[in-house]
Structure formats: structure tokens, C-alpha cells
């Protein structure tokens, strides 16, 4: 279970400070799939980075399974069981897909184990296992490999930042299946997905709407989704795919 208590995050801007998140409190219970949505620039990606420890909050606390992790490093949080699929995956010259999946799983997995993770994200494993994670891979391919690294970790909390970006429509159902399989296979696992896609909102247990750095709405899908689709301004934000987040 993840708990965010009164999280605020500010960055210096010229001589002043710019507030990206203001007093956000949120609980993600074990076994729940929570989708965070809202207009671009609302602070969604920042929230995910704060949970992973890539950024530190200006104030507030983050608890994971009851433990205060606010001051822990990225590595410590990863070892406690938090995984993060970046919105923009990183390229590595020389590191092969198999190397990355081995590092992710923390074991010396066999190529056939690695193939399972790749097949799950819709990549023909044989063609990819020895490829370098470099500029020769397309954005969509990198995005799927990024998701496969989170699958290979199989942790209690998995965060995906706009996983659908760069994934073609044909593979979309496959992606939905990945999240549903994760829920089934990892006991009590919590999943947080940042997304604008209605089809991903449709599989959420709960939906959180972040707008202008504050929690605008939060609740079960059945309550929130009709309100989102009924509001022209929110709909515009939710349907927009891609775009940079703070």
C-alpha cells in the first residue's frame, strides 16, 4: 500500500518558486489499479517521480507498506518493491535487451525467460533479445522494452508513466492485457498508470484527476469516469495522447 501525505513540490524559477504539486494526499491500497489522469502540466509525472525517489518533495511524507520512505534513495525504494516505467525510456549504447532484463529481474535469467517478458509486450523475442538498447530501436520498441523491465521485476508496486505513448492502436489490447495479467499474477500488487486513454481508464479500480497541481477528483471508476466524460474541458485533457509532463 502506498500513501502520500500532504505532498507539495516546488521548483525554483528565476527569483521565485513555482509550485508543481500542492498538498496532495492519496492512498493506493494493495491489489488496486489506480489511473492518474488530468490535463498536461497537472503534475502527474512529477507525482510518479516523487514516489520513485527521482525527485524529493518540498514537504509531506510518502509511506510504502507503512514505512516512511520519503528520505530513501531510488535504489532503496526499488529494493523495497517499487518499479517505474519511464515516460521516455533511456537508451544505452552496448547494453543488450537481455542484459537489461537480467538487471531488472535481479537474476541471471535464461534467454527463454527473457523471451516471455518480451512476448508479453508484443515483441517477437528472438529478434530483440540480443539487440542493443540504443538508437536503432524505435520509440515504440523502447517503450515496450521499458514495460518488460517492470514485468521482469514483478514488484508490489508498479508505476507506468503514459505507457500507451508510441504504442500503435493494433497493440493496444495487448497492452491492456499486460496490466490485467499483472494484477492476476502478482499477489496484492498495486499498479499506478498515468494515462489519458479512455481504454486504460476503463480498467481502473480508481481514478485520480490531477489538475493544476492539486487533486481535483478521486474515487471509484464508476463515479469518476462519467464525470470526466461529461465535462468538455476534462475530456479534452484526458483524450490527449503524449505531450510532455512536468
Amino acid at each position: 500500500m502506498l500513501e502520500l501525505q500532504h505532498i507539495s513540490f516546488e521548483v525554483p524559477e528565476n527569483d521565485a518558486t513555482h509550485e508543481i504539486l500542492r498538498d496532495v494526499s492519496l492512498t493506493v491500497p494493495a491489489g488496486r489499479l489506480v489511473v492518474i489522469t488530468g490535463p498536461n502540466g497537472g503534475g502527474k509525472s512529477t507525482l510518479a517521480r516523487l514516489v520513485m525517489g527521482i525527485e524529493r518533495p518540498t514537504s509531506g511524507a510518502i509511506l510504502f507498506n507503512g514505512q516512511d520512505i520519503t528520505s530513501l534513495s531510488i535504489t532503496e525504494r526499488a529494493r523495497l518493491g517499487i518499479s517505474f516505467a519511464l515516460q521516455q525510456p533511456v537508451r544505452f549504447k552496448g547494453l543488450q535487451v537481455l542484459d537489461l532484463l537480467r538487471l531488472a529481474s535481479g537474476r541471471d535469467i535464461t534467454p527463454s525467460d527473457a523471451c516471455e517478458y518480451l512476448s508479453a509486450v508484443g515483441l517477437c523475442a528472438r529478434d530483440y533479445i540480443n539487440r542493443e538498447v540504443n538508437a536503432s530501436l524505435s520509440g515504440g520498441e523502447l517503450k515496450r522494452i521499458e514495460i518488460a523491465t517492470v514485468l521482469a521485476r514483478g514488484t508490489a508496486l508498479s508505476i507506468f508513466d503514459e505507457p500507451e505513448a508510441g504504442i500503435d492502436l493494433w497493440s493496444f489490447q495487448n497492452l491492456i492485457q499486460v496490466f490485467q495479467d499483472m494484477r492476476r499474477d502478482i499477489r496484492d500488487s498495486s499498479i499506478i498508470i498515468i494515462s489519458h486513454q479512455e481504454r486504460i481508464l476503463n480498467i481502473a479500480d480508481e481514478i485520480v484527476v490531477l489538475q493544476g497541481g492539486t487533486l481535483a477528483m478521486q474515487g471509484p471508476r464508476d463515479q469518476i469516469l462519467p464525470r470526466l466524460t461529461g465535462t468538455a474541458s476534462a475530456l479534452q485533457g484526458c483524450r490527449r495522447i503524449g505531450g510532455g509532463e512536468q
Partner: protein
Amino acid sequence: MKLDSIQKQLLAEIADLHSIPEGAYNIRSNSQSVGRVSTANIEITSKTDVSGMDIRIKPGTRHQSVHIPVVLTESGLSEVVYNDFFIGEDCDVVIIAGCGIDNCGKADSEHDGIHRFWVGKNSKVKYVEKHYGSGDGTGKRILNPGTEVYMDENSTMEMEMAQIKGVDDTDRKTVAELAAGAKLVVRERLMTHGKQRALSTYDVRLNGAGASADVVSRSVARDDSYQRFDAKIVGNAPCNGHTECDSIIMDNGRILAVPGLEANDVDAALVHEAAIGKIAGEQLTKLMTLGLTEQEAEEQIINGFLK
């Protein structure tokens, strides 16, 4: 053939040799040949005027290898060795060289290996050269390899050069001349640490139509080390040339990349790329999200980069 444990370890590092190699070989230890075998197609003979060997490979020799590793374990030894390879036409061979120095003493140890290759028409050569240094003496471990390659029509040479650890000072010079249709591929991997210095200079001349060269160096300079990569390709005919220097810089390391392209023919297509930078923060972050410490992440990134 008698070798002590340090010599055996050096051989394993530079030539992956754990026992006597198959095919033709010459193992040189502390300035003496301690084992040599010629085969029906590959003849190794000592030079009479200077220190070194002539290695003659008969035309049509295919799928055979030559190992010529060198190890130095006596502190203060300094040698210049000339090895000439005469590779006949239509060959397909692998040549594995390399030098390991273990210096536990106060005096500098130095091996300057000058290798010259004459590659016959349509022949294919793979050349692997690894350099390695060990020992905790204050004497420097110095390696100054010189490589000259003369490639006949439609021949191919793939050179893999690696110096990952322990060599204090190196000045590598490689020159190549390519006839029509010849193809040269160089993959250099270099890591320097401590106060090491490594210079690598290439002068590749594409003299015949359709000749091509691809010279790529990947390097890491850490601590207070210094590297210079100076790659020059000259196009004297319709040809293709590409050089690339891709470096990671760390700590107080310094790297100088010197691009050099000279086109003397309107159909010479030459490209140079050079990039120097520290490890990207986002790469470290990504591996840390997988549970690695910052130091482990750094190691993985460097190992992958130099693989």
C-alpha cells in the same frame, strides 16, 4: 613449455588462452620464444636481422588461426619486436596477438610490437589484439604498438583492439592502405584510469575504387587519465570512409578527439563523428530504479559501452 602462474594469467587475459592453442602459434615470454608451432599452411620463422618473426600464410588457407601472444614479467625489460604477416590470396584466417605486462618492480617495462600485414587479393583476416597490465610495482607498463596494413584488391580486414586495464602509457599508431574493393573495419575499445596516458593515431588511405573503411573507437577515461584519438581517413578514389570516436569521461579524465578527413576524389564519401560526455544522469536513474546502486549502475553502463 614452462610458464609460471602470472604468465598463465596474462595469457588468459590477452588471448583467452588456458592451454596450448590449436593451429599455428608462437608464445613469447620475457623476450624469448617459449613455444612455437607452424602448420602445413602457416609457417612461422624468426627474423635474422631484428627481433621478431615472419608469418607466411599460404594462398587458399581457410578457417585457420595464428596465436602470437607476448608476456613480460621481468621488471625493467624493454623490447622492440617486428612481426610481418604475409597473407596469400583467397585466405580466411584469424590472427590473435596481444601483450600482457606484469611489473612488480621499480623499473619500467616496455614492449613495442610493430606488426605489418600484407593481405592478398580476396582474403579475409580477423585480427584481435588485447593489451593488459598488472603488478603493483612503481615501474611503468608501457606498450607502443605500431600496425601497418597493406590490403590488396577485394580483401577484408577486421581489427579488434582492446586495452581495458593496467597499461600506464601507450602510443598506438595504425596506418592502412587499401586497394580497390578492399574493406577495413576497426573496433577499438579503451579504458584508462589512474594517471595513464593513451594515444591512438590512425592514418587510413583509400586508394582504389570501392575501398571502404570504418574506424570506431569507444573509450572511457577515468581518474586523472588522458586520451587522444586522432583518426584520419584519406579518400584518393571513389570510396567510403567513416570514423567515430565515442567517449565517456569521468572524474578528472581528459580526452582529445581529432577528426581528420581528406578527400582527393569527387566521389570520396567521408564521415567523421565524435562525441565525448559523462554518463547520462537518466541512464543511472533508470538502472537505479531496477535496484542497482549508483556505483553498480555506472559499472554496468561502462561494461556495456566497452563490450
